């Protein structure tokens, strides 16, 4: 191999080294949607409903569970409201389905006012300290999870969900 070719190879190697280092250290475009929770038991998390009941996520096993992380001030959460209301109007009579809205980063007063004004009748729970949001590995809100009757996490939707998205998650949660 000629010295010139060797020198060129050296330069290429240095550039590759820099690129590899940059790719691993400046990872701003990582996949936000990948979750290691899929196919595993739902986190052992507890939330407190607006009427003061403590609900353990794992105690909901035996039913199809949809968990929606939201708050009153985020714009995509507000855009998602009609889909949530339509979805629940279709299924609120089905006792095999549990729909839980877990509030992150909001005040109980603002949430109570919001729920009262809209007459929401699905379970709304506060998450002080974001412990449940962290246990679910959320990356913001809204974010929606499907949990099957056997307690396994079977679906996740990051960002604003449509009615079709919610129905799809319910299909997954029903094991269909």
């Amino acid at each position: 191999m000629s010295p010139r070719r060797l020198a060129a190879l050296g330069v290429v190697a240095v550039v590759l080294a820099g690129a590899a280092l940059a790719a691993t250290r400046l990872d701003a475009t990582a996949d936000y949607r990948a979750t290691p929770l899929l196919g595993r038991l739902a986190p052992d998390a507890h939330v407190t409903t607006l009427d003061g009941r403590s609900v353990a996520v794992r105690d909901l096993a035996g039913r199809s569970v949809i968990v929606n992380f939201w708050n009153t001030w985020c714009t995509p959460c507000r855009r998602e409201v009609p889909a949530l209301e339509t979805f629940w109007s279709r299924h609120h009579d089905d006792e095999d389905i549990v729909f839980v809205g877990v509030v992150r980063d909001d005040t109980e007063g603002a949430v109570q006012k919001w729920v009262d004004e809209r007459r929401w009748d699905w379970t709304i729970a506060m998450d002080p300290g974001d412990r449940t949001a962290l246990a679910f590995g959320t990356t913001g809100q809204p974010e929606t999870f499907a949990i099957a009757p056997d307690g396994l996490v079977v679906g996740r939707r990051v960002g604003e969900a449509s009615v079709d998205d919610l129905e799809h998650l319910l299909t997954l949660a029903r094991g269909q």
Partner: protein
Amino acid sequence: MIARLRLVALAALVVLALVVAGRGGSGPTTDAARAAHLSEQLRCPVCEGLSVADSPSSTARAMAADIRRRVEAGESDDAIRRAYIAQYGSWILLEPPGAGFGLVAWALPIGCAVAALGGVALVLRRRALLVRAMDVP
């Protein structure tokens, strides 16, 4: 010329030693220092490329509090990192783990740097041989 080659080899060894030393070390020992160190290593999940320590978001504050709680409960640094990886995947680590695929991310730059130094050494050696051959009457 041999002296120059030795110098290049020595420089390569120093670089490797610095990299290895930088990866090791005993690390922080007090609970507060351990929690702060972990907060620097874990990614704020609602931010773009910020650590928990650097982010002012409520999620990062909640994570920092959770890390402190776990440290005070006696969990090891490794157990805390594993708990977050179980929830978020290895993406939650700002630096790639030193095992599995993450090891490639560490080994590749070092391997490339060593290869580059080796290439330079070879070029210098060949040039020296050429000069020596030209000096022969």
